[in-house]
């Protein structure tokens, strides 16, 4: 089969699977950001909690991905066959880089700047939003970027639990030993990862304060 024939046969499915893939990753990252950034900020305010919670997030990341998908399936609400389980697993994986980078980014703000801010009568909240988060934004966005690229790769495994996405091609290709099918899943996923990386990198340069 020539590439042109291949595309005319699979083109629409590639587009559809890419859409599913993007949906899984986009939703998971959105949820991970909504939990992870405020969570990371909260951890900077309660040093006692930060250690166990970061350790837990770390531990989750060490679970092999296929196993995590499998573990989730029998769980009520979170589990089952399909997209929901995949999104839950991707959120769990994405949480650590976002949480940790938010935490370390804010902790890394020069203590003299914190002290000056507090000394001039800023409330903790004002200091946080007007100074610390702004200064930590580069590190926070870097965490989101890493999480996104990892999630795009991981989401291919979601096909194993019936969540769709580009992994469908890969599993099918592996099952019938057809490399072009594997590539039909792998290449769009790789391109998606590169584009996401570039876009978030651009966002980092564009919106983040740079100290020379």
């Amino acid at each position, binding site marked *: 089969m020539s590439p042109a024939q291949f595309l005319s046969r699979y083109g629409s499915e590639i587009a559809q699977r890419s859409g599913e893939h993007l949906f899984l990753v986009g939703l998971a990252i959105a949820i991970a950001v909504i939990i992870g950034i405020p969570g990371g900020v909260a951890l900077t305010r309660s040093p006692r909690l930060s250690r166990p919670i970061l350790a837990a997030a770390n531990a989750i990341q060490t679970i092999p991905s296929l196993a995590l998908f499998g573990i989730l399936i029998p769980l009520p609400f979170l589990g089952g066959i399909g997209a929901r389980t995949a999104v839950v697993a991707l959120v769990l994986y994405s949480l650590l880089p976002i949480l940790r980078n938010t935490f370390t980014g804010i902790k890394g703000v*020069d203590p*003299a*700047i*914190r*002290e*000056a*801010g*507090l*000394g*001039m*009568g*800023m*409330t903790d909240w*004002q200091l946080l939003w007007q*100074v610390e988060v*702004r*200064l930590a934004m580069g590190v926070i966005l870097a965490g989101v970027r890493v999480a996104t690229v990892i999630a795009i790769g991981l989401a291919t495994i979601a096909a194993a639990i019936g969540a769709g996405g580009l992994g469908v091609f890969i599993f099918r290709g592996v099952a019938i030993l057809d490399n072009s099918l594997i590539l039909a899943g792998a290449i769009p996923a790789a391109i998606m990862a590169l584009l996401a990386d570039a876009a978030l990198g651009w966002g980092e340069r564009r919106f983040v*304060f740079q*100290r*020379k």
Partner: protein
Amino acid sequence: MSSEPGLIECRGAGFDLNGRPIVSGLDLSVPRGEILVLLGRSGSGKTTTLKLINRLLELTRGEIWFEGKRTSEWDPIRLRRRIGYVIQEIGLFPHLNVQRNVAMVPHLEGWERVRIRERVRELLHLVGLDPGQFAERYPHELSGGQRQRVGVARALAADPPALLMDEPFGALDPITRSEIQKEFQRLQKNLGKTVVLVTHDVQEALLVADRIGLMEGGKLVEIEKPDGFLRSGNPAVAAVLASLPDRSRREALP
């Protein structure tokens, strides 16, 4: 000492950390318009004393009064906005330009935009920076001396009656340093601010102080006007003065 209570009054003020006294038995009255210099080596408790005044640290013993009210009765945020604070590292916000750094407290206080802009121009002039040239610059685009000036302008922004300065000229080269010290003196005389300035530099203390308080081991061991300080028989003072080159000691004498 005058009978009128000082703007800042410490009465038996003390601060313990993990059961160890960092500052103890501090009695001190700073009248309005005075520059009080707290002199001492590192670890003598001078920075802690500043932080007790603006409640970045909480007293563990005694009390401090500001504007006739115990600091413990002040809302710490309100208290800090009434007291400008300048630290050695300056702590300018690196993501904000000079204009917005200086405008921070007025902005927090909800001043109108036009009033803030006028105030920033006025302050930059006051500290010897041309607003047209500097207002839009970022801290990393400034020299050490310029940053220091911006730090002072920022501390003065909401016109607080008092300033606390922690080694404010410490990071400057000697020439810029003496230049800014002199300017600072002039500025303070014009504005009549009450200043508590911390330094380990005896020459700086002799140059800018109305009174010098010498701290050692968390205690105030001597407090005198500069000429009295030079003549003090206190052995702790003698030890500090021994670090001065002879020439500057003679020059410092009235």
